[in-house]
């Protein structure tokens, strides 16, 4: 019998070993929930924790890099939406001001939407969505609830071109609303300057200059600029005055158009601090 077993094992030793190892593996598998194996696993867990301790910073680096990318994209999208919301907010405020202006000034004017803004060092132009067919005339005055924008310089059936006051070749006779001091407004390609205001006149920062009665192109009393710098320190006889347009090209989306010969006296423009 023993001989037979020895012979069998010898002949089929690979199967015998395989069977023993499989059975032993199955035995170990069955022991998995036991207390001894749990203790062993706790011990091995320390080694596993050590590997993970080394691995985690690398994983986190890869993960955070990816997460950063996603967050950057989201941030960009949110910024874009915020910018759009800000634009809508500004547009809403502008339309509200126009309504307010209409309530306070019952004059005959046309409103138009600015569809294109062309910026240049020498002259700035706007394209409006209204033209000859809407009753717009050449040299008509363009302004908004805050002040003067420019005049209609060219016309087609459905569109019109506005030459804004930010025009190097344009000189406008203006007066200080507070002290009635007269001057000549010109755009130097970067900012508005008021020339020929005598040093004896009273001009302060924050004063508003509006069109004067001597202007051949614009009717009087339309606000144009707000003084941001006024100094007598220049070597000439005149003030050095710099100003900022009340209707800044960047901020406007809508405008009003009146004929040049229309009475614009006593118009009440919206003033905001």
């Amino acid at each position: 019998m023993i001989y037979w077993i020895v012979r069998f094992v010898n002949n089929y030793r690979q199967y015998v070993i395989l069977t023993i190892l499989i059975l032993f593996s199955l035995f170990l598998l069955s022991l998995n929930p036991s207390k001894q194996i749990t203790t062993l696993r706790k011990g091995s867990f320390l080694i596993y924790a050590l590997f993970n301790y080394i691995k985690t910073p690398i994983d986190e680096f890869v993960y955070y890099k990816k997460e950063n990318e996603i967050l950057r994209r989201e941030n960009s999208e949110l910024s874009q939406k915020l910018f759009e919301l800000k634009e809508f907010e500004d547009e809403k405020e502008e339309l509200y001001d126009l309504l307010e202006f209409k309530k306070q000034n019952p004059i005959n004017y046309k409103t138009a939407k600015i569809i294109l803004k062309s910026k240049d060092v020498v002259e700035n132009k706007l394209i409006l969505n209204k033209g000859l067919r809407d009753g717009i005339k050449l040299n008509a005055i363009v302004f908004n609830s805050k002040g003067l924008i420019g005049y209609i310089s060219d016309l087609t059936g459905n569109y019109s071109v506005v030459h804004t006051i930010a025009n190097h070749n344009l000189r406008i006779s203006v007066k200080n609303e507070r002290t009635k001091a007269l001057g000549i407004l010109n755009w130097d390609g970067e900012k508005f300057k008021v020339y020929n205001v005598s040093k004896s006149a009273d001009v302060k920062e924050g004063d508003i200059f509006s069109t004067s009665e001597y202007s051949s192109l614009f009717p009087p009393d339309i606000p144009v600029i707000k003084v941001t710098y006024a100094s007598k320190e220049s070597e000439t006889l005149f003030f050095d005055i710099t100003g900022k347009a009340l209707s800044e090209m960047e901020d406007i989306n809508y405008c009003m158009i009146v004929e040049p010969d229309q009475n614009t006296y006593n118009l009440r423009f919206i003033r905001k601090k």
Partner: protein
Amino acid sequence: MINRYFTAGIHLSLILILQLTLVELISFQNFKPDLIMIGLIYFTLRFGQIPGVIAAFFVGLFFDILSNGIIGASSLSKVIACFIAGYFSDQDSERVEISINFFVIVFFITVIEKIIYIFVAVNLDFKYLLIYLVNFGLIPSVVTLIFSLLILLFPKEKELR
């Protein structure tokens, strides 16, 4: 003879450490090469079926213990896989020829080992069997096959004892 087994045992231990450290560091999701299987297949092809299954049992057992896995699962799957690999071993020669056959064997034996491991260690939902087989069987086997190609970088003399 014993000295050769001892050296091979040291090599397998190094591979085991590499599998537990370096491979864990470079692996990503299921893209994890099984260096142990490459080593065990090489060992089985070189020394034969019986030394192969014994080595597979102990390496698998240590792997389960050190990796905090299900103890007995890797040893069982590796024993069966190496037993099958043993049929490709040349009884008369201890030389392992690194040819296309070697890589085919590595791939198929690894697939078998992974499938057995899935059935033993994973609480299978048969609805997702195919997904399991692809994610935990086929993909790691392909990655292992690609890694096994690194053997080609070793000098030819290493193939001989």
